[in-house]
């Protein structure tokens, strides 16, 4: 009897054991995601392209646009306008490169040439991005986290120099893969076309892009390497018109797919705190540049200094509005040590970090368009004696916003994530020609082409001709513009870079790179600028420093401290990496 009981107890146990050993792998198959091995190259490509476009494009129309003094933010702007750059995280870029790597492997496995070419270009572009901003970085040892080995877990850093060499090699390797007629590339399917948000599967345009990026990177390293022959060999392979631009239109469906400064999805301040920088406005006014009308919103109230509007002896009332004009009382201005803003003396009127206030504040009576001085002291939304509002809701009638009907939008014909453009190519070739290299045209020729391409790109003399005609401060056509003495090519690099700087509106990363390489154009430093100089690089972020400490510290040790690093130590935005060491640029 006991044996019998034991028997069925034993059978129960046996039943348990039998059931328990089966089908666990089926139960543990993730029903929510695909296996990595099921990845579709076109969809991975779409991921890499769109995320690169959003990230790099937003940098160009956002923070770097502030750094290069195109635009200014007047709230929560210490990074944007005062150069208080915190460390920068490259996780997003390496994450994208992870996807790109699987994309490349898949394309190679399938022997899909077009996809391989695109993957190589995107690898070059994103590693170029890392080298440009951080300097030394993991490159050959990077992206191997899935291969279990100690050296992969803690990737060693490559020198900035060798990353640039790799970027150039990848771009060169991409070109033959993209060669041939479109019909010879059977791997380009309708899915490829819809996934290629830049060129819709046009292999020839991708090839031109590879050459264009080669031109960009040869110039980038031109102070450190002899690139004359390389550049000369590229001259007729690069972009030939604005249609070739490496630019992604915005879907504008939600916040993630829209122009970053629109207020449709978030709060009004997303748009409202974006204003024009005085540096750019002053320059465009001096050049009578009609592009100002597509950039800026006219101010609502003009200001004039007029003592007659105030009671004699009143040295307290600084300003008042009368009949739509704001009058400024010169006696009060003097008493309060207010001064008319002047771009050329701004940095000395209120020297950086001086505790002694010779000039306490500024006003600006420029008509129509007024910009905010860089690193303006105080609550920036109060600039130009504005009294209303707070950080997020100021209405400043005395300073120019970005043009609302263009930039407070989710998407638009002019609003593209622009990563490389034909006008950049023209100015690059102008610079090469100016150096005496043979690039199929004179420096002046390429310089003029660059300016014209920029006017065309922004539709200045087509859609916006009416606004151009309406604004009395600018010329009305290209020809007049080009013949002005302060515009016409004068043989200097300064002029080329200045126009390239203006043309890089909303795609300002190249302007920043040029400024760093050449010190041009001359940019201001303001009173509350973090360190009295414009930073040169992104500092390595904690994410890498924390988890890859020894290798990151080794890279940090190779940086050259400048006198502006302050308490940062070597891992400072004001340290110089290989590209700038020994060049004496930009400062």
């Amino acid at each position, binding site marked *: 009897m006991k044996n019998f009981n034991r028997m069925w107890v034993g059978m*129960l146990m046996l039943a348990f054991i039998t059931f328990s050993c089966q089908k666990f792998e089926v139960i543990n198959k993730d029903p929510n995601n695909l296996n990595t091995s099921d990845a579709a190259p076109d969809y991975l490509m779409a991921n890499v392209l769109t995320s690169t476009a959003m990230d790099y494009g937003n940098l160009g129309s956002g923070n770097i646009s502030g750094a290069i003094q195109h635009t200014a933010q007047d709230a929560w702007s210490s990074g944007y306008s005062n150069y208080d750059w915190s460390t920068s995280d490259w996780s997003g870029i390496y994450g994208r490169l992870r996807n790109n790597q699987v994309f490349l492997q898949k394309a190679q496995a399938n022997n899909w040439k077009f996809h391989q070419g695109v993957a190589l270009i995107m690898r070059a572009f994103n590693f170029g991005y890392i080298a440009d901003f951080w300097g030394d970085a993991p490159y050959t040892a990077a992206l191997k986290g899935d291969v279990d080995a100690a050296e992969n877990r803690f990737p060693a850093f490559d020198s900035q120099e060798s990353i640039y060499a790799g970027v150039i090699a990848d771009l060169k390797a991409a070109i033959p893969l993209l060669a041939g007629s479109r019909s010879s590339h059977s791997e380009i399917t309708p899915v490829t076309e819809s996934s290629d948000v830049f060129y819709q599967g046009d292999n020839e345009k991708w090839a031109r892009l590879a050459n264009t990026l080669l031109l960009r990177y040869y110039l980038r390293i031109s102070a450190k390497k002899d690139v004359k022959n390389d550049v000369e060999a590229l001259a007729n392979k690069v972009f030939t018109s604005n249609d070739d631009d490496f630019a992604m239109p915005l879907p504008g469906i939600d916040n993630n797919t829209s122009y970053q400064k629109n207020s449709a999805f978030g709060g009004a301040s997303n748009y409202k705190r974006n204003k024009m920088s005085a540096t750019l406005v002053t320059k465009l006014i001096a050049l009578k540049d009609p592009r100002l009308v597509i950039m800026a919103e006219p101010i609502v109230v003009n200001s004039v200094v007029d003592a007659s509007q105030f009671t004699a002896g009143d040295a307290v009332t600084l300003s008042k509005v009368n009949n739509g004009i704001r009058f400024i009382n010169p006696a009060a201005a003097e008493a309060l040590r207010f001064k008319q803003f002047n771009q050329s003396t701004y940095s000395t009127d209120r020297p950086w970090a001086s505790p002694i206030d010779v000039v306490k*504040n500024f006003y600006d009576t420029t008509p129509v368009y007024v910009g905010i001085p860089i690193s303006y002291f105080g609550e920036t939304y109060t600039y130009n004696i504005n009294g209303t509002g707070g950080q997020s809701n100021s209405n400043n009638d005395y300073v120019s916003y970005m043009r609302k009907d263009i930039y407070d939008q989710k998407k638009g014909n002019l609003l593209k994530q622009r990563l490389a453009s034909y006008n950049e190519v023209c100015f690059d070739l102008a610079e090469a020609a100016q150096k005496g290299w043979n690039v199929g045209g004179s420096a002046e020729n390429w310089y003029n082409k660059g300016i014209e391409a920029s006017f065309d790109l922004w539709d200045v003399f087509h859609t916006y001709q009416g606004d151009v005609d309406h604004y009395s401060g600018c010329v009305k056509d290209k020809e007049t513009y080009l013949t002005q003495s302060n515009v016409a090519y004068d043989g200097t690099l300064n002029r080329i870079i200045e126009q390239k700087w203006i043309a890089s509106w909303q795609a300002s990363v190249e302007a920043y790179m040029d400024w760093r390489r050449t010190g041009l154009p001359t940019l201001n430093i303001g009173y509350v600028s973090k360190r009295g100089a414009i930073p040169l690089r992104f500092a390595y972020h904690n994410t890498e420093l924390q988890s890859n400490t020894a290798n990151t510290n080794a890279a940090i040790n190779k940086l050259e401290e400048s006198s502006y690093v302050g308490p940062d*130590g070597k891992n400072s935005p004001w340290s110089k990496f290989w590209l700038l060491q020994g060049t004496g640029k930009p400062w």
Partner: protein
Amino acid sequence: MKKRKNPFLIVLHRLIMPMLLLFFFSGGLFAEAHNNASNPSKVKNSILSTTKNFDFVVKGTVRDANGPLQGATVSEKGSSKQTLTNAAGEYTLTTSGPNSTLVFSFVGYASIEVKVSGKAVNDVTLQSSDGKLTDVVVTALGITRAKKSLGYSVGEIKGEDMNKVSQTNLLNSMAGKVSGVSINSTGGAPTSSVSVVIRGIRSLNTDNQPLFVVDGVPLKNSLNNVSSNTGGDNTIDYGNAISDINPNDIESLTVLKGPSAAALYGSRAGNGVILITTKSGKKAKGLGVTFSSNNEVATPYKFLETNQSYTVGNHPYTSANSSNSLDGTNIIDLAGTDTYRFGTPLNVGIKAIQWNSVKDASGNYIPTEMKGYNNLKNFVQNGVTSVNSLSIENSNDKDNYRFSFSNTANTGILPTTGLSRNNLGLNIEHKITDKFKVTTSLNYTRSKADNIAAGDRGGVYQDIIYLSPSIDVRQMQNYWLTPGIQQRAAITPVDLGLQGVTDYDFNNPYFTLNQVKNSFLRNRLFGNVKFDYQIDKHLTAFVRYSQDMLNERRETKISKSLKAERNGYYGLQNLFNTESNTDFLVNYKNNFNDFTLSASGGGNLQYVYGSNQQSYSQSGVGIVAPELFNLSNISSTGIRANGYSSQKALYSLYGTATVGYKDIAYLDITGRNDWSSTLPTNANAYFYPSASLSLIVNKMINFGTAVDLVKIRGGYASVGKDTDPYNLYGTLGIGSFGATTIQAVSGTLKNPALKPEQAISTELGIDLAFLKNRLRFEGTVYQSDNKNQVLGISTPPSSGYTSRQINAGLVRSEGIELQLGGTLITNKDWNWDLSVNYTKNNSYVISLANGVPYYQFWGDGPSGSWTYAKGQTIPNNFNADGSPMISDGKIGQIWDNKLLTVEDKTSPYYGWPLLDGGGGQQKFKGGAFNAKEIVGNFNPKLLLGVQTSLTYKRFTLSASIDTRLGGEFFSQTYRYVGSDAVLARQMDVGIKIPDAYKNNIPAYLKSNPDVFIKMSGFQSAHLVGGPTKALGGFEYEDNGEISYDGSFYPGVYSDGNGGYIENLGDPATTHYGYYTDAVTANWNFAKQNMFDASYIKLRELNLSFDLPKQWFGKAKVQGVSFGLYTRNIIIWTKAKSGIDPESAFYLQAGAQGNGSQFRQGIERYNVTPWTIPAGVKINVRF
């Protein structure tokens, strides 16, 4: 998402239950027949009894106060003859004659000797031994044990002790009552999540919550109940569903603290087990009906101390302030703007045109006086909670049942919030035969909240706090400007042209409260059916099927014009979780001379499935027509949907044996083997054993009559743990960018070679009782080592992956628990019990993986909590003697940025703050991660709980007090609102300059640089100046206006040539800013906003009175009791910050990686006003 369930498993589950039943029934019935007809031993016995005249067969039933006792020993005195009672408490013993004496004994009960005197039937009722230590407790797998025999510490709370004071949340009623258990609630609402942590942090990758087992049904519990489903801040804590259990249904609650106690529950028991036994009808003597009613009012009494003396302004007030004045006479209040400065003084007779001003006959606004209001106080209301319960129970020889119904209706202190809950419970036991019993327990709960106020940033409290104090929030109740389209914010009249209608920084609090509606409806059904069979007098068995099913529907409706979601929002989420367990257990019990043996073996099939389906409008895109909350009212480009499901299976076999020697020593051993679907198929099995020993020393050594118990106990256990589903292989996610489909390779590296985790614990304890158990003591020391934890560790982003799943680390948790209880007075009329418990726990990271020096729990703002493994050098932190700090691995450290100071020791300015070129304080190395310093620890130094109960005749006064000493927390509320002119304390934090030094401030500051210049501790600010002239502000010019809110940070700044310039108030060299406590320093450092977390709380205070039966005459009333109570009253906090230190927890939505959303030592907008609840409880038994 194609396949949710594996069909094999469905089939398996459909088959296994009937199969098991079939086995059981056939085996059971067959055995029964066998027993009666052809059991040779029985036949032999009967032959013996007839042939041997001297033998005398005695039968009977052994009971205790509650019913039959199974396993009681019946022996004949002076003979080795003995037997055990069966499940019905029955025994049959052949004795040596009609004059023999029987001894009835059972652990925990006083033994009884009965002279047979020729009686063939002897029924006895055993009385439980005096005092509490000999109680019987429910242990793992529902096995009832005498507490005395246990080799490990268990905590126990009786249902009646939990219900003296009504708590809507079951878990809260455990607070302070069991040593080693810490309970923390993240918010004041009944819907808030409650964390239960037993013996400290043991796991780095989970929320450390114990397993709950109700009547044998394991219930899913986690703290991941927070979601923030909109783009804007709308962080909602839906609470943990475990709190839906009806406290009134609880018979007893046992806390199995250590793995030795819990080893049989396997994987999930690593953080301890809370066993709940619900009331059944067993105790009923015939039909009984109990009705109880609780009604309680909670009155808010303490509020975050906000500034009520100045408007929140753009500029300090001046009488001719150009921007604050409209035509020079009437002042416009720019209230409601988010700026840093104290504006117009309130309550001083200043009149202004305000947001709510009306026009006079000629169309001009009439200025009104500016006053300050306590809007937090004015906004909230008294909360009301009613709990009404009815239970019916009955029992007879064959059957007993208990049915209960309970309704909870709660209205929160925020209007429109609250909780409503219905609980139904049914326990039935039916004896099919004397040996075969079926029981079932079913629980159904429906809980529902129509509106849960969002927490964190973006919640209604934030909107109230940021409202300028010049605005009386009560006047904002009419919150629509254009119904459905535009809320009415407290802004300047539009026709004055100063601001547009949509320019508001914070929402109308009434709008947020009424038009941001977060609701849930939760249905939980759990229960089991269990068949018990007594195979013979030594062998019993049961098989059980249990099921827990939880369905929760969450809905969020946001009207248009919420600041963070201007276009509105609609979202619907359905969560479904189910777990089934099929288990069996065979018990064997026998006595061999002086030894007792109890052994059990069993197995379990567990299957868990969960899914989460969500549809919602894309953040920012919103809904189309206003006020229509339906998925069809979301545009085709704006609608989003996602889903997730997971399943896992765990199969187990286990066994346990207890050997007792006399009443002196007990040895327990257990072993369990698990097979988990979540581990690699070739290595998915793991075995783990445990052992514990209990020695009753007073039975070995005679200590005299004053000593009732000296027990030494010790245990060792190992527990294995599997991982979450789908942790083995990397995956590819699918998404979209506009109309473009994208795929992404997961950045988290999975690990196909994961091993099970292992927890090894040891504990040692002593239990003492003196003076007839009037003085009782229990002490336990324990250590628990958790190895091979499955951790998601951060990897260098440059490796292409941001985290990696590894098996690594050793986390050690160790501590002491002491419990001292005494019956101070006991006589006919009086009884006074007092019990004190003390808990001290420390957890350490002993080691991590190679190249991983520390583990981060969270990071927030300048602060964070991470722990360097023991022995690691902590960068940039030094001991007092200047040597590098070596980590002791202690978990709980809170870090902060270091202030940059002059580091040159030869400089006279050594240690002074080194300011930047603008006079601002700077972070050491820019606040880099490896440049931060340890400034606190979130763990308490000790926890102390005191329970006392004083009875006089029919009156009982009981109280529960608990104390936490030590530990710190970081208040993000203070940091956030402290960067605006919101807190009362900000008005007056500047260093006071005595009049004599007004013209020589540097001399004054230098007179005591340690206090005035150097910084240390949690100083709230370190600046000279004030928000107004009266409060010490310096003349300050801003944009053409002279105001008097200038201030400066004492310190030095570089002269650019290696020297320093003093920034001490000399106007020629000092950098002034406007009163900046609020801004830079507050934002860059956490210290200003860190507080000591010590507190004393009156958890419960209860006065109850049993009405004499005779009052009711002949009415069929068996008893009426009446009680008055209050609870959770904060008596004292050290920090006096207005924030309940117990709420210094942050439940973060969507936090991944560290396994838990629950962050300790940080608080974000947990500023629910403190309340005093007062309640009445009436209990009537018929």
